[in-house]
């Protein structure tokens, strides 16, 4: 405690040097522009960065999606109308990706549509179960909480390499199986098992984050509510479904939205773990966008932009539906 | 030290008019208390004077100079906030000197002012502590000390005692009053507690709905409230009000009836109330005295305070009347008590609730 205090004081002292130089400057600025304009001054740096690196790109993206060629600079890109969208959406039979002119887009979309619900459901289910266990009357809660949380700190690359090392043909998992008398399996070579492990590894890496949030939500539920339920002779299960879940709903909603947004954006772990393979079995939308925009030559920025906008639209619809549902349920 | 003039001050938040128009003059060295129920605009008025809110129109002058466009820091006023607003991450000493450092006062002088204020408020031993380590009363002193170090022309207090417990409040009340006597500055003090107003003020300003109801010395307000609102607000326990009708207004006096009580004749002449007019009779509990031919009131509850008793009574029509009886009462619930107003200790208000005084000499 005292050590951290000393560090804080020391950094404070170092930080105060430029601060002392800045203060008269800022006081002068306030005199020059007037106190009413100061909030804009405080807002400006962040606002500029947001406009430059978040809002502007959205508009540039729209522009890209209607233009062609592999040139990066907008002025050098010819307008091609909705060609990119038509290419992406062009399909002989929408149920069979191989009849589409961009079959990988549809495969990636299909994979994402399976991956996201599966991963989110598994994530929230396991995180909730873990949070409930941690919320119980147990010893060493801090330790267990740390155990479940620490993979969140690991970089996606480290996570992927770790599991690759475990899952490879001569990895420890197969080693254990062999010792138990089973045949070793090439986990990442078969489509189904690769998909399973993709879900497993991403859940492993991120569930701790949601566990912590859910645990805080559980701890915010006052004990006396449960005591009242006990007096009302409610069973454990009934207490869970009629008290815990309803009171946890706002937190669950936050967790759900965060989990979905993160799940849709999954890229790093799978890029390193499976590379989208075998074949395109674990190729998700974001990796598809990355591949056509940056990895495959010639770089097709227009197609990548069109694909990302389609993804954005799907996300937007999801968010709106989500808002509608949550508003509807809070009214009802 | 300064006098303060508010001229046609108005304040609206959006479409809501909080202060319709206020004119007020406060002379140098006065201790003025703004009092009124919550939402009466007293805090807004104080913040307008402080410069924390901009007036919608009107003018504020300190020592004859308009300060309406002067920022809060430069008006020469200091404020003690309701929550004290002590900087939680600074020690008491840093709290006291922060404002002086901001105007780049020499270190020696800061030191001197801080120790002077600390000595005045007896907080010298607390200077190195942080606000969290102080009790409510100590925080209060520090907040006042912070105002003192700035040596302002006018002190502003925004309900400073409302976060203290009852006992401490009485103590601090005395202390702030004696501080005023020693410093002699103009002080403006906002409270909703009429006892604070009565005990501390040189001048009370009673506010309701953003309007001034009455301005005057405490006893002036107590003795001659201008309307039923002030009459009801000043004085504790509250004044009793009886709705009556004028039966007769003659040389012999004014005769009133109401509430199913026997007629009451008050020996006063020249009241501008014709027979048949409605009038509200106000009598303080301490001014109802036993008399054999007085109003018969039924006691519903006898409250024994030891040194005195409060008898909760009811008129035949069910209007509650509170009667103060010195000493320990022998009456009990259900007994009948006969009382009438002490000579001259009553107030009459007309239909609009305004005080009625005899006209002419």
């Amino acid at each position, binding site marked *: 405690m005292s050590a951290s205090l000393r560090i804080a004081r020391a950094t404070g002292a170092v930080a105060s040097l430029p601060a002392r130089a800045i203060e008269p400057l800022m006081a002068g600025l306030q005199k020059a522009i007037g106190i009413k304009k100061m909030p804009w001054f405080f807002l400006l740096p962040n606002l500029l960065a947001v406009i430059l690196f978040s809002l502007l790109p959205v508009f540039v993206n729209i522009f890209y999606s209607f233009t062609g060629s592999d040139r990066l600079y907008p002025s050098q890109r010819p307008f091609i109308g909705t060609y990119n969208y038509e290419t992406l959406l062009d399909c002989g039979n929408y149920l069979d990706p191989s009849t589409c002119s961009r079959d990988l887009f549809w495969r990636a979309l299909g994979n994402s549509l399976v991956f996201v619900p599966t991963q989110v459901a598994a994530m929230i289910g396991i995180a909730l179960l873990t949070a409930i266990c941690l919320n119980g009357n147990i010893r060493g809660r801090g330790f267990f909480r740390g155990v479940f*949380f620490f993979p969140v700190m690991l970089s996606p690359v480290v996570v992927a390499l*770790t599991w690759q090392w475990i899952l490879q043909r001569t990895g420890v998992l197969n080693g254990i199986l062999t010792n138990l008398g089973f045949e070793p399996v090439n986990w990442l070579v078969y489509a189904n098992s690769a998909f399973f492990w993709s879900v497993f590894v991403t859940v492993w890496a991120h569930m*701790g984050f949601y566990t912590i949030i859910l645990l*805080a939500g559980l701890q915010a539920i006052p004990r006396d509510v449960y005591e009242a339920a006990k007096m009302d002779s409610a069973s454990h299960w009934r207490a869970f479904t009629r008290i815990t879940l309803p009171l946890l709903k706002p937190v669950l909603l936050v967790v759900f939205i965060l989990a979905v947004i993160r799940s849709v954006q999954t890229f790093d772990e799978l890029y390193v773990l499976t590379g989208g393979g075998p074949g395109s079995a674990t190729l998700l939308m974001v990796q598809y966008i990355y591949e056509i925009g940056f990895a495959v030559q010639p770089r097709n920025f227009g197609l990548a932009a069109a694909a990302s906008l389609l993804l954005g639209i799907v996300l937007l619809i999801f968010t709106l539906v989500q808002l509608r549902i949550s508003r509807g349920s809070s009214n009802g | 030290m300064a006098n303060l003039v508010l001229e046609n001050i108005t304040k609206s938040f959006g479409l809501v008019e909080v202060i319709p128009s206020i004119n007020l003059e406060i002379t140098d060295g006065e201790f003025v208390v703004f009092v009124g129920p919550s939402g009466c605009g007293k805090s807004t008025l104080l913040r307008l004077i402080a410069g924390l809110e901009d007036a919608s129109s009107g003018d504020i002058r300190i020592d004859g100079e308009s300060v309406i466009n002067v920022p809060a*820091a430069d008006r020469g006023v200091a*404020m003690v906030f309701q929550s004290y607003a002590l900087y939680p991450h600074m020690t008491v000493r840093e709290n006291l000197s922060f404002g002086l450092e901001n105007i780049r006062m020499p270190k020696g002088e800061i030191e001197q002012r801080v120790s002077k204020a600390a000595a005045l408020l007896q907080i010298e031993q607390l200077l190195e502590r942080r606000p969290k380590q102080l009790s409510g009363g100590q925080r209060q002193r520090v907040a006042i000390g912070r105002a003192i170090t*700035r040596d302002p022309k006018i002190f502003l207090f925004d309900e400073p005692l409302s976060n203290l417990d009852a006992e401490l409040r009485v103590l601090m009340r005395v202390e702030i009053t004696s501080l005023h006597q020693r410093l002699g500055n103009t002080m403006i003090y906002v409270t909703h507690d009429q006892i604070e107003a009565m005990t501390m003020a040189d001048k009370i300003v009673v506010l309701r709905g953003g309007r001034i109801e009455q301005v005057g010395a405490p006893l002036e307000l107590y003795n001659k409230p201008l309307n039923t609102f002030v009459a009801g607000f000043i004085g504790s326990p509250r004044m009793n009000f009886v709705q009556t009708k004028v039966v007769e207004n003659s040389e012999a006096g004014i005769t009133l009836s109401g509430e199913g009580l026997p007629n009451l004749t008050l020996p006063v002449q020249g009241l501008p109330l014709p027979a048949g007019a409605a009038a509200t009779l106000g009598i303080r509990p301490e001014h109802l005295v036993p008399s054999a031919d007085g109003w018969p009131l039924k006691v519903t509850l006898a409250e024994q305070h030891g040194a005195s008793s409060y008898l909760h009574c009811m008129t035949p029509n069910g209007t509650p009347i509170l009667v103060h009886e010195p000493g320990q009462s022998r009456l009990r619930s259900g007994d009948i008590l006969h009382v009438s107003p002490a000579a001259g200790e009553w107030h009459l208000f007309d239909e609009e609730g305004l005080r009625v005084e005899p006209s002419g000499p």
Partner: protein
Amino acid sequence: MADLSLASSTGGVRNMLLGRRGRGRLHISDVLTYGYLLLGVLVMFAPVIWVVLSSFKTSAALQEFPPTLLPYSTEQVVVEGYEGTLPLFDVITESGDVVQLAQIRRVGLNAQMVDPTDPEAGRIVVPVANATPVREIHFAVENYVQLLASSGSEIWRFVFNSLFITVAATIITLIMNSMAAFALSKYRFRGDSLALVAILSTLMIPATVVLVPTYLIVAQLGLVNNLWGVILPTVATPTGVFLLRQYMLTIPDELIEAARMDHASEWRIFWRIILPLSSPALAVVAIFSILSRWNDFLLPLVVLNRREVFTLQLALASYQDENVVRYEQLLAMTTLTALPLAFAFIFLQRYITSGIASTGIK
């Protein structure tokens, strides 16, 4: 699992290991809870420990299947007349005795061996089936030494790049986000809600969706293959503004009014009053920022193409891409990359988890 059986046999130990905070007997639900949590410890911890253990294995040991838990290596001996070292084997001779021989080379099902105590005796041909390597626990620290030595200054460059990006981006993020949060929490001005919506709406835009135009803007600014090209696009985090704003809303306005009456300039109010009082929220934002910048992958992957500007994460991924994967170095590097955060986590665990919990909901 051993703990469980132990616990049920002796009450004292049970109470020590599994004792509930209250009184009362161990209920079936407690057994299930602890069972689940211990399984969790295994699943969460074991993979990482496995990688760390593996990183201490020699390249030969890494090839073994099934793998051993601890890093073993075959004992090596120097035999006169032979170059280098030779692996030592326990060999069952035809007479049934066990002797230690050094293997010179292996030919099909047979191996040529030599007796290290008597090299003059010449080569002995032994069937492989009769030979088992003599093994000892050996932490192959040389993996790390080699990694650091062979890549020369390169690895320090990666570390520097990652550190520079993390530190610079975090400092800028903290200052910019808290300034914006201050404006949006403590002032009312025309367009304040518009600005808030503009900043928060970017929460909805996944970074990957705007990857191409972000690259374009970085390129326009001439920052491709420049560390600032990774720093600048990430500093205006909407979550940071949001968390800090929510926190600053809880700081009473009276403090600011008091400071204003104390002649403090707006900047001084921000710097001397608001920032110190927001330190818990600043800590959470800092931790988030450090985590995501240190672990960032996609943006660096796109913006940084030259090896000298690689971050640790890019370098790590590139090791795996190379034609011959040198597992012993890959594992050592994985461990090294995860190490700083692992240490940070041990020290900051309480702050991190409670910080995320308290601000994550609002």
